[in-house]
């Protein structure tokens, strides 16, 4: 898929995954790269930006048989942002789909 598309939707993907559960970086990256083919390394800078913007916070938690892991959690404003962006995306996707389907109908 086109890179610009991916880059634009990465933020909402990260917010959505975190809306379901707190994640450590590796977990979040795996969750997203399972479905979207993207340079995994770019997710970390994005997480830092979301943290700067106050949408996520981090905390350390012990892991079974390893060093503590850094978990990312959505803040209240992060939840609101996730909700807003999701709404916006859903409406946008529905419009695009309607247009694409309409185009196919006309061609037939």
């Amino acid at each position, binding site marked *: 898929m086109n*890179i*610009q598309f*991916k*880059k*634009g939707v990465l*933020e909402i993907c990260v917010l959505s995954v975190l809306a379901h559960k707190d994640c*450590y*970086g*590796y977990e979040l*990256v795996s969750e997203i*790269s399972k479905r979207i*083919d*993207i*340079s*995994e*390394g*770019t997710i*970390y*800078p994005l*997480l*830092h*930006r979301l943290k*700067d913007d106050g949408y996520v916070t981090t905390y350390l938690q012990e892991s079974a048989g*390893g*060093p503590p*892991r*850094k978990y990312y959690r959505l803040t209240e404003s992060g939840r609101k942002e996730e909700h807003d962006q999701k709404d916006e995306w859903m409406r946008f996707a529905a419009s695009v789909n309607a247009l694409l389907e309409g185009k196919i109908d006309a061609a037939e």
Partner: protein
Amino acid sequence: MLQNEQEFIRIIRSRLEGTLPKDELDDIISDYAEHFSIGKANGRTDEELWRSLGSPDDIAREIKVMHLVKKAEDDQSCRNIFHAVIATLGLGLFNLVFVLVPFILLVVMLVVIFLIGVCFTIFGPIASVFSVLQILGIPASAIWFSPMAGLFFSIGMTTFGLLLIIGDYYLARFFYHVGIQYLKWNFSVITGTERSA
């Protein structure tokens, strides 16, 4: 080149040292170190992890742009916006046209407006001196058809010049703000992953 964790982290660190504050850089490095260590605990090799993370040079470049744009936003100065623009140019050829060209045009426009303002401001008092001399009856200075009209005209010139300079200042602040928003948008939508995806 050996594609392992140490090399990956060395590249990120060397590219960002001096730009990012130490604690922020350490925080970023710790994320990648954790990524490698969990990945390896899950049976993946250094090379595999490197490949799916993408080029550390590109990642460092992105982090740098993000940091500098934010800095230019928080602390408004010519120097900071200049650094942010230069870093953004490094993200891809696209930005040479869509960032550098508008940036240069804007800077030239703001400088030209400022210089015109300065000319008018300086011209006013000089012209008024001639008017006053003419009113006093010194013929060599008779550049005006009517010295009184000349005097008012000179005052008008200076006022206009000062207004231009003040207007230019607000224009610069406006474009600074819009420019930052544009760099952020440009960064989050267009460039950054074009080489590494």
